[in-house]
């Protein structure tokens, strides 16, 4: 471990990872923006560029269509639309970025939810000519529903409104008016032109009235150290390591990924559901013991007492325990064509635990354009978002999704087809 820290070959040992998602309506220039970020940060290779240049020319387009970089499947290229979440990668000397590129059409809410589930930041694109529209609200709502910590509104196509400050200010004003209804922790506005490259990577000389940062600068510097919960100690046991080797004869290690808090050697802990108390003997990795571990590290914990713990159990700190219940209220996003059945039974996954649940009640269906709670039409189908009550066959140890995305999220699975039906956020 020691000599690794001393090792230095460029700055890559100090790079961080930022995951972000992009949302925009069909023609807001989302693919162009991603293409621009990749191109201006020199993450596009010659063979990729030549390929899209050729395609652009064949289609008789005026500019090299950077949007073509992001269409992965044949059907997407044929139809000129993005069907599924695609992940893109680029890096600068400061950070590595993972983009969840999700389609913006209403029928693809499920993909936006999927992309948002792991993101630190959401880019919401607004067409400067059209201003804040219904879809803007929907995209922002999904970002807040999934508790993406940072939201950046990019007012795009500034080149088509003569780079006027009034246009930018109006969008900002309108956005703030509706955003007051939503729970946004950290909000930024940037005027850009993805097509011309203004304020994406390089500062625009055509908007001298704008003194803020460029999009890339924001992505590179925004503080993400607090995006994980470092307060409530939660260690869902994923796998029990029992080496069949003489030198590790009595070794029983509990492998998993820290879901919250900071665990230290010697900490007094409880194993749930048994409730037995013990202390942490060691926190192990392949590279040796560590003194402490925090989210999202993958480690193996050994304990000072021999207690029965298996996959799906949770190790927590004695004085800070999660909720424990079989009855939960959750917000669900339904992701399958097969409609939800009230009273129906589904498989459920929560942290490393597998159980089953029954849909007890549908409280309301949410209109994501208006936030209106519809209590009459309670039929929940593809892309619907609803508040429901469920009862699980065995108790879950959980936190509210707001408090911890790892211990507050569930998925529902069809027991017949094995398909993932819904994403759930515990209230």
């Amino acid at each position, binding site marked *: 471990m020691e000599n690794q820290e001393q090792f230095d070959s460029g700055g890559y040992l100090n790079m961080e990872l930022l995951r972000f998602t992009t949302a925009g309506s069909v023609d807001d220039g989302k693919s162009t923006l991603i293409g621009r970020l990749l191109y201006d940060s020199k993450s596009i290779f010659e063979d990729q560029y030549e390929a899209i240049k050729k395609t652009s020319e064949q289609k008789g387009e005026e500019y090299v269509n950077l949007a073509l970089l992001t269409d992965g499947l044949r059907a997407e290229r044929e139809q000129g639309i993005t069907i599924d979440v695609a992940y893109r990668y680029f890096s600068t000397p400061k950070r590595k970025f993972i983009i969840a590129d999700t389609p913006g059409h209403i029928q693809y809410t499920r993909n936006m*939810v999927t992309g948002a589930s792991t993101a630190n930041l959401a880019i919401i694109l607004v067409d400067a000519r059209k201003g804040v529209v219904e879809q803007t609200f929907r995209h922002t709502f999904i970002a807040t529903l999934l508790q993406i910590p940072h939201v950046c509104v990019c007012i795009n196509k500034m080149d088509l409104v003569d780079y006027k400050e009034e246009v930018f200010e109006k969008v900002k004003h309108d956005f703030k008016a509706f955003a007051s209804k939503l729970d946004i922790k950290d909000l930024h506005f940037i005027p850009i032109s993805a097509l011309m490259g203004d304020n994406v990577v390089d500062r625009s000389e055509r908007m001298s009235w704008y003194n803020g940062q460029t999009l890339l600068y924001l992505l590179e510097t925004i503080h993400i*150290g607090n995006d994980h919960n470092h307060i409530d100690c939660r260690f869902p046991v994923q796998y029990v390591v029992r080496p069949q080797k003489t030198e590790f004869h009595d070794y029983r290690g509990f492998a998993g990924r820290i879901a919250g808090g900071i665990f230290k050697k010697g900490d007094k802990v409880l194993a749930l559901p048994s409730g037995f108390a013990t202390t942490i003997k060691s926190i192990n990795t392949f590279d040796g013991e560590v003194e402490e571990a925090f989210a999202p590290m993958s480690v193996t914990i050994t304990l000072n007492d021999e207690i029965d713990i298996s996959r799906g159990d949770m190790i927590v700190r004695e004085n800070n325990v999660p909720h424990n219940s079989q009855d939960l209220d959750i917000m669900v996003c339904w992701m399958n064509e097969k409609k939800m059945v009230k009273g129906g039974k589904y498989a459920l996954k929560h942290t490393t635990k597998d159980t089953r649940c029954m849909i007890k009640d549908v409280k309301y269906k949410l209109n994501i354009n208006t936030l209106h709670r519809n209590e009459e039409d309670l039929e929940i189908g593809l892309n619907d978002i609803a508040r429901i009550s469920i009862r699980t066959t065995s108790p879950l140890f959980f936190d509210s999704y707001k408090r911890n995305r790892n211990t507050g999220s569930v998925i529902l699975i069809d027991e017949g087809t094995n398909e993932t039906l819904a994403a759930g956020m515990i209230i």
Partner: protein
Amino acid sequence: METIKDYNLTHLRELEAESIFVLREVAAQFENPVLLFSGGKDSIVCLHLARKAFYPANVPFPLLMIDTGHNFPETVDFIHKTVETLGVRLIVASVQDAIDRGLVTEEKGINASRNALQTVPLLEAIEKNKFDAAIGGARRDEEKARAKERFFSHRDEFGQWDPKNQRPELWNLFNGKKSFGEHFRVFPISNWTEMDVWQYILLEKIELPSLYFSHKRNVFERDGSYLAVSEHIPMKPEEKEEELIVRFRTIGDMSCTGAVLSEATSIEDIIQEVATSRVTERGTRADDKRSEAAMEDRKKAGYF
């Protein structure tokens, strides 16, 4: 562990933690997983991560190698050495054997390759050994169809991938449920880029086959890339053999893996080269150049 400011991991350690989590999910959710091991850098990194994930226990699954019969001898040696050092079990499925039994037909012509033929022995080995999860080192940054892949990627009873009907993958809740006869492909390093892999190899001092480093080799030029002179690749009369200093950016079947001119003799040199390269690593792969959807079509049929 290198940490930046307070409680934040570096990008490599965060990627590592994610991959280890995925590998442990495989061991927990499946009864009979296997690690696809080609001797290429990505599968070597996967194996290294698997050692870390289950330490101090051994890697709890065997390795599967698809032998095209057109392998670089350096790769084959490396695989056998690795297997011996780690004490893991190696299963070999052979393309030649599939050809001999008439399951597949050898491609004809000057650009014939056994690359696509690998799918058949791969699926047969999965079925015969009743593997329910096959772990692979594919990355989403490699190729546009792969950008759409899940970590846990479902395969039907024919081993086929249905890209338009994939299960949504949320948070880190991986759904590995399946019916009898179906299996999963699992890609623990989905979120890594070529550069991440090289930086990690340097950081962890991971050993690699010598092919990745520059060496003298007899090659000939075809369609802008250099192919190794070998009995497996017929040369056209106008193609001429020359000895050059080259290395390989990816390692696949000899018939479809091109070499690049390079003086890189260390991992540091390679990182420098990758950082300034203007062509993707798969730019040297003839198997991807066949059509715009070449990878998508192979993947649908059950390819890696």
